[in-house]
């Protein structure tokens, strides 16, 4: 501080310098926050409703894409073969061992059973966990999805198996309203 040449003791002027600086810093931060936070999702965006999906028209082996909170969501009715293929994989072989299922605790392992509520119905986010492209169904080495952007491959439980994506496709909160109707979100 400025006055130390005449005395080693802090002076009242030193105190005023620091106090003024502190007030200015807090004031600048307080003024900056609205300018920064205005970029976060607005109330209107946060109020996006949940959606309901009618499962009746979906055939065994078919996958449809619906829009959920601006993102694609895959609803896939898996064949017995696809379910068996997904169940046959040990969790230890998976790049991402966590279920990534919002309906379960965060540390649930990525077994096939932890990826669905009903084995036949796989409901996963259509957002590749690498850089957000939408993967194509029934492609890639594992019969699940292939992301064309950077080559990530997902299996028939939507789990990452190969490529740069770090995580399994996310599973949003959903519930069965009846056998043929789900509510997502």
């Amino acid at each position, binding site marked *: 501080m400025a006055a130390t040449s005449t005395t080693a003791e802090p002076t009242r002027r030193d105190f005023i310098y620091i106090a003024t600086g502190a007030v200015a810093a807090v004031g600048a931060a307080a003024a900056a926050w609205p300018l*920064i936070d205005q*970029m*976060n*999702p*607005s109330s209107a*965006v946060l109020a*996006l409703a949940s959606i309901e999906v009618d499962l009746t028209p979906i055939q065994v082996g078919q996958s449809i*894409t619906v*829009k959920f*909170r*601006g*993102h*694609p969501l895959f609803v896939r009715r898996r064949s017995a073969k696809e379910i068996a293929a997904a169940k046959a994989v040990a969790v230890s072989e998976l790049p991402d061992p966590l279920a990534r299922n919002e309906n379960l605790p965060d540390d649930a392992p990525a077994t096939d059973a932890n990826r669905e509520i009903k084995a036949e119905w796989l409901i996963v986010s*259509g*957002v590749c966990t*690498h*850089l*957000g*492209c*939408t*993967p194509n169904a029934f492609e890639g080495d594992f019969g699940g999805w292939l*992301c*064309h*952007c*950077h*080559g990530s491959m997902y299996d028939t439980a939507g789990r990452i198996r190969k*490529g*740069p*994506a*770090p995580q399994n496709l996310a599973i949003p909160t959903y519930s069965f309203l009846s056998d043929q109707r789900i509510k997502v979100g």
Partner: protein
Amino acid sequence: MSGQSTYVPQTGFTRWLDSRLPIVRFAHDTMLTFPTPRNLNFWYAFGAILTFCLGVQIVTGIVLAMHYVPNENMAFDSVENIMRDVNYGWLLRYVHANGASMFFLAVYVHMFRGLYYGSYKAPREILWILGVLIYLLMVITAFMGYVLPWGQMSFWAATVITNLFSSLDQISGGLKVGTHVATWLWGGFAVGDPTLNRFFSLHYLLPFVIAAVVGLHIWALHVPGNNNPLGIDVKGPQDSLPFHPYYTTKDAFYVGLFAILFAVLVFYAPEFVGNPDNNIPANPLVTPADIVPEWYLLPFYAMLRSIPQKLIGVIVLGGAILTLAFIPWLDTSRVRSNRFRPLMKQFFWVFVVDCLVLGYCGSQSVDASLHLGGIEVSLVWIARIGTAYYYAFFWVLMPVIGLIETPKPLPDSIAKSVLGPAE
């Protein structure tokens, strides 16, 4: 500025003005009498060419903004309206869109020029770093501009690039810093209307920031003066010429040639650098089969894709640009110009080829491979080797070669080199 001002006001008004706001003196000293090395070649015209490009982008951009609508439901149609109905809208938009490509073409030549002649070396480190900053601002501005037409490529480019930040999740544990940053950038849970609006706002702002940094860049240039193809210092008045008329005419000539090339692109191949998928309106549910960035970002895209781990891929991508800022201290040679560096010159040209190879790798689909003499080589591996060379060139070759290379003898002065030893 170097040297004394030689400006002498000729009229009563300019004398009056000069003692109040010496703006005419400033222009006189920086644009007319500024001493410039007499041996600057063609490659030194790109500073003027880049100034021309920035001017073209700002002027066409301002008028395009009078017709464009930054709304997710109207953006695509407003661009179509510009192309079909606005008077000369097609011309203005094609000049602006192709202008970005011409701008990057020029900036790459300008950067390789600086790299070849050692223009980043002392005392021009700040000049070089300001240039890297301008380049980074150009990349951000161009990316945001590319999003505005709200076609499929626009939308998915925005998605992929903003998702680069989500890789921060991998080092922030349960805090999910990356997800929060991405959400903040989007103003939602995906790229959407709020994203488009803010990109438009920033795309309008950043060119003026670039113009300001260009001002600093030229200021930093005018302190030590230009480097030159010999890389030796100007030792006296015999080594330099006044900027006007010698370099104003030379620059104007090359700006003219550049404008011809520009016009050929705009009038004969206006969609040549564009991606046809961007003529499809944005669809958040379908990603195009192959998403490719604009050509000027392909080498960096190849680096990103060549790394199988998300976070490391993003770091390698960012590091490739950040590395440029360290070049002034990575090059240990006491000689600036590659004309006198027989060993470095070879690695320099390998580096130029490396950048082109990386660009090619980035333009091909992820699983593509190349048949070289009967052997199938995966492009991912070529890109990995290319990425390794990119980094090795700056972080290994530059410091090591500078120490072990014996440079050729330097000429005594620019004047002797230009005029011969007769005097």
